[in-house]
């Protein structure tokens, strides 16, 4: 029964409760993926209602449908090309004017619109009055007010969707842009219509208006058309910036003429949100409060996660031992036990961090504080060529680079996001600390604390310098302009945060997991073959590689043993210490290892300093590489991150070791 299928798209400005509506509609029947070719998240779900099978697609939250961001292009292309039966726009009743701006654009796309008026209670609490009947009449679209009782609001909405689908009558809405612009629109339309092979899904009027506004994405869509030259001639004849301003003016003017009839605005009063903002962005208290809250988030992400990580670790160890003793032949036992289960353990051990991190990020975002964090830190970040939104991912990096890189998702601008992802691996994560503790403790005695602190500073410095270099060379350009809504503070809904946590945590396991697993198996093969040698010993392939790269590592002060340990460190950096323990034959005892290291003339205070710097900066661990691949969606940038890290690490270690030798250490 073909007719019983309905496809609806959800649109709306960010922070209007669109995701909450989507979750309420689809419950757990959701599918999260990416839009083809871009890293914008695509969410879809299904509802069965009164014999209809309704597909709901959650479009990215946007303020407009110009080509400012990938989100906007994705949203409008979907509406035009996939032609959903109904486009539901979720509108924040307490912020009608700006929300209706998107409505005017949806109307131009010729879509069947249904408006869901959310947060009416907030508007009415502060004394606004909303006239919904008038609104329906003026906008010529159905307007549904969401009501307090959960079920009823949803049923009203779905009833209306079905009603509108069955009516099949199209409301025409148009905004007039004044004689001069209208003439040009008509001129372009006349030329465009001559092209018989044009994509007929795109409304002519819409294409014309977008071209007058200088939309490069739309320009790209007609570039192969035979009439392209004539269209461009018209566009070149106008003052395009003026037109752009004029068109936006006219849209807001259209809203302003109808707005006073739909809503009367109360005088501004001190809202709870204003009260909170007054303190949290206070000139003196704002930054300390921000730092304290970040520290709290950090504690929860890492300290609260520890017992859960330990449990996973214990389970993996137990499984690995169980497999080793019960599977034959030996090589298979070793592959499954040391390789695969060890590898899966390495993936799963981060899961508690990632789940908690995404839960907290969702809370921060839903409460409106994430926008303030960017607002507070932007000046500092701008000075180093980055955007305010890059701060939180970088800070998270001190705990673990994996969730830090995933947190970079909140940055909309592709370039800003890429730079953040590329420099986060230089931030010294928790896993690198054991390396510092061993070597600084062994060779620097009472100065150990200072040396370790210096490593953290080195990481930050390299990250900042790298950001600057990247800005000057391959990721050219200034940070994106900071034009951001500071949404009112709200209590985030638990359901939304939990769903957000689950979706992202699960994506990590699925996608990054496969790459990590592959990496771990490769290392296992290198350490175990030729078959029969002791795992990771001099005779194994990894031992041979250690010897092979020794000439390269010699100028840094490393022998083959350290080189092998560093190769193992690719799985997870804390393994470096354990591997050195194995290679020096001291096992887990760190005191014995310290003594052995002091006795070994091959390792000196200077080479240990060089080693610490190298471990900090060289190729990120497999898990980090996995998420870099996943988040950038590109092998090119993943390989760049690896190579760049190794090169920087080599240079810095070289400078430390050779510089130190020149100075006579």
């Amino acid at each position, binding site marked *: 029964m073909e007719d019983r299928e309905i496809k609806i798209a959800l649109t709306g400005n960010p922070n209007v409760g669109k995701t909450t509506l989507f979750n309420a509609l689809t419950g757990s029947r959701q599918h999260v993926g990416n839009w083809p070719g871009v890293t914008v998240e695509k969410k879809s779900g299904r509802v069965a209602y009164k014999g209809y099978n309704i597909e709901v697609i959650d479009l990215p939250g946007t303020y407009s449908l110009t080509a400012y961001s990938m989100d906007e292009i994705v949203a409008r292309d979907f509406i035009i090309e996939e032609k959903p039966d109904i486009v539901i726009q979720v509108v924040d009743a307490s912020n009608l004017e700006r929300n209706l701006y998107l409505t005017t654009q949806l109307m131009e796309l010729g879509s069947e619109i249904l408006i869901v008026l959310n947060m009416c209670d907030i508007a009415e609490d502060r004394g606004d009055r909303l006239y919904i009947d008038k609104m329906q009449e003026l906008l010529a679209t159905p307007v549904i007010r969401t009501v307090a009782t959960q079920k009823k609001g949803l049923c009203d909405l779905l009833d209306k969707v079905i009603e509108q689908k069955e009516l099949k009558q199209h409301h025409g809405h148009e905004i007039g842009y004044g004689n001069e612009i209208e003439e040009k629109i008509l001129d372009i339309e006349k030329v465009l219509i001559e092209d018989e092979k044009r994509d007929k899904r795109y409304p002519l009027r819409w294409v014309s208006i977008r071209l007058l506004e200088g939309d490069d994405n739309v320009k790209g869509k007609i570039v192969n058309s035979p009439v392209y030259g004539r269209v461009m001639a018209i566009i070149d004849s106008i003052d395009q910036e003026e037109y752009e301003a004029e068109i936006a003016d006219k849209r807001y003017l259209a809203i302003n003429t109808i707005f006073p009839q739909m809503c009367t605005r109360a005088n501004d009063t001190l809202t709870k949100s204003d009260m909170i903002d007054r303190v949290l962005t206070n000139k003196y208290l704002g930054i300390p409060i921000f730092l304290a809250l970040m520290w709290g988030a950090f504690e929860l992400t890492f300290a609260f996660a520890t*017992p859960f990580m*330990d449990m996973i670790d214990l389970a993996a160890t137990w499984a690995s031992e169980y497999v080793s003793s019960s599977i034959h032949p030996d090589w298979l036992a070793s592959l499954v036990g040391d390789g695969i289960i060890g590898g899966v353990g390495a993936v799963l051990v981060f899961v508690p961090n990632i789940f908690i991190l995404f839960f907290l990020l969702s809370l921060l975002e839903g409460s409106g504080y994430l926008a303030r964090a960017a607002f507070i830190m932007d000046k500092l970040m701008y000075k180093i060529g980055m955007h305010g939104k890059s701060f939180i991912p970088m800070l998270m990096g001190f705990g673990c680079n994996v969730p830090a890189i995933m947190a970079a998702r909140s940055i909309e601008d592709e370039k800003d996001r890429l730079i953040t992802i590329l420099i986060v691996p230089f931030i010294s994560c928790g896993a690198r600390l054991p390396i510092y503790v061993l070597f600084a403790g062994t060779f620097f005695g009472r100065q150990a604390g200072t040396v370790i602190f210096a490593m953290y500073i080195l990481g930050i410095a390299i990250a900042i310098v790298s950001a600057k270099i990247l800005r000057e060379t391959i990721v050219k350009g200034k940070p994106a302009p900071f034009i951001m809504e500071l949404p009112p503070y709200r209590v985030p809904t638990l359901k939304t945060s939990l769903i957000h946590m689950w979706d992202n945590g699960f994506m990590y396991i699925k996608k990054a997991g496969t790459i990590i697993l592959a990496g771990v198996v490769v290392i296992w093969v290198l350490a175990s073959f030729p078959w029969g040698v002791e795992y990771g010993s001099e005779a194994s392939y990894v031992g041979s590689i250690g010897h092979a790269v020794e000439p390269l590592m010699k100028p840094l002060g490393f022998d083959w043993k350290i080189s092998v340990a560093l190769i193992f460190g690719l799985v997870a950096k804390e393994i470096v210490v354990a591997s050195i323990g194995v290679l020096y034959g001291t096992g887990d005892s760190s005191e014995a290892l310290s003594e052995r290291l002091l006795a070994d003339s091959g390792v000196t205070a200077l080479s240990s300093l060089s080693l610490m710097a190298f471990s900090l900066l060289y190729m990120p661990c497999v898990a980090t590489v996995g998420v870099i691949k996943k988040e950038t969606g590109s092998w090119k940038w993943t390989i760049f991150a690896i190579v760049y890290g190794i090169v920087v690490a080599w240079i810095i270690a070289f400078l430390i070791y050779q510089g130190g030798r020149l100075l006579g250490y």
Partner: protein
Amino acid sequence: MDIKRENGNDVQDTSTPMVFSTVTGSLYVLLGLLQLSAGAIRILIGPDVQVPLTNLLFIPADIIGAFVLLLIGTVFIYGVIEMHSGIFEGISYAYVGILISLIFAAIYMLVSTGNMLEAYLLKNEDFIGWTPASDLRPGIYLAILPLFAFIKWKNMFEPINESRL
């Protein structure tokens, strides 16, 4: 207790939040300073020297925690100063101070729950001898005052919901 002196719903009257903020703010600042000195002495001199009262008041030698206590105290006091000079909006600081102190108490208790799992479930050797009292700290027990205020002025803290759907 000062909070009980609240009478009437005159919004322009800030005397009750002022008294509450003064008392709570001073306590946070005081214990923050004690904790700061305990932490500083631990780093500068070593674990042998004890700041008086630290055992009695469950004050850990934790400088970051001290910073948090001082910060919460300062937020309350800042509000008192504004309210005292007749700015009604100063009440915002009492409001946010209550929220932040409760948030941090929650964070401390969650971390403590994690420790409890380590000690009792995983029997981690780093946590031998751990009892729930080991994690008791001013950041937790001082939050009883703001919690009291939170309940007392509940209507003021009614959530601004993300959606009424």
